[in-house]
């Protein structure tokens, strides 16, 4: 059973547009939700993370929106740039011993 479901699988956005990636989870014990960015040939790098006690967290152009009742969270990339083109993964953890990752979204920002 997939613990974290991520959509869409791929996304094409024009430069300056908003990229939105969604994730859903089932385990209500999850209490830490990070997003990772991965460039080809590199390991993932932490982008932004949220705890369920807040509904939104913003860092620069990146925002996480969190809906606890719906068990969903999403990543918004404002003013998307070609340099943002990468694969994005959401993840969830309840005890920091195990992290469950989504299947990834390949973002392509067209100039």
């Amino acid at each position, binding site marked *: 059973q997939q613990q974290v479901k*991520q959509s869409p699988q791929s996304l094409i956005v024009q430069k300056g547009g908003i990229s939105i990636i969604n994730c859903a989870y089932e385990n209500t014990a999850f209490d*830490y939700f*990070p997003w*990772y960015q991965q460039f080809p*040939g*590199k*390991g*993932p*790098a*932490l982008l932004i*993370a949220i705890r369920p006690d807040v509904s939104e967290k913003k860092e620069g152009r990146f925002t996480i929106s969190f809906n606890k009742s719906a068990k969903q969270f999403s990543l918004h990339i404002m003013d998307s740039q070609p340099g943002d083109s990468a694969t994005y*993964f959401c*993840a969830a*953890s309840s005890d*920091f*011993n*195990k*992290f*469950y*990752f*989504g*299947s*990834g979204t390949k973002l392509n920002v067209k100039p």
Partner: protein
Amino acid sequence: GAGVSQSPSNKVTEKGKDVELRCDPISGHTALYWYRQRLGQGLEFLIYFQGNSAPDKSGLPSDRFSAERTGESVSTLTIQRTQQEDSAVYLCASSMIAGGYEQYFGPGTRLTVT
């Protein structure tokens, strides 16, 4: 460098051979994680170390997989009698509990079983 390093970066092996993958975490990081990433897919959690102990090994795909960590530092992931389905990128990450559990990933080892 100060980041997580992994070796080798690439490994091609014949089916049935054993392989060892190495991870050098960031100095002082007490937690260490191994993941498997198949082509075009997400990360699959394999095992977690707190210090030199692995409290939960249930993520290891089969008994052909084992891992150890020594000196609260280097970790080795061993795959015995490799199979073609073991072909993937194996990623290691480390974190400091006091630092809020942010995981720092290494570049991975690309394993190809022929």
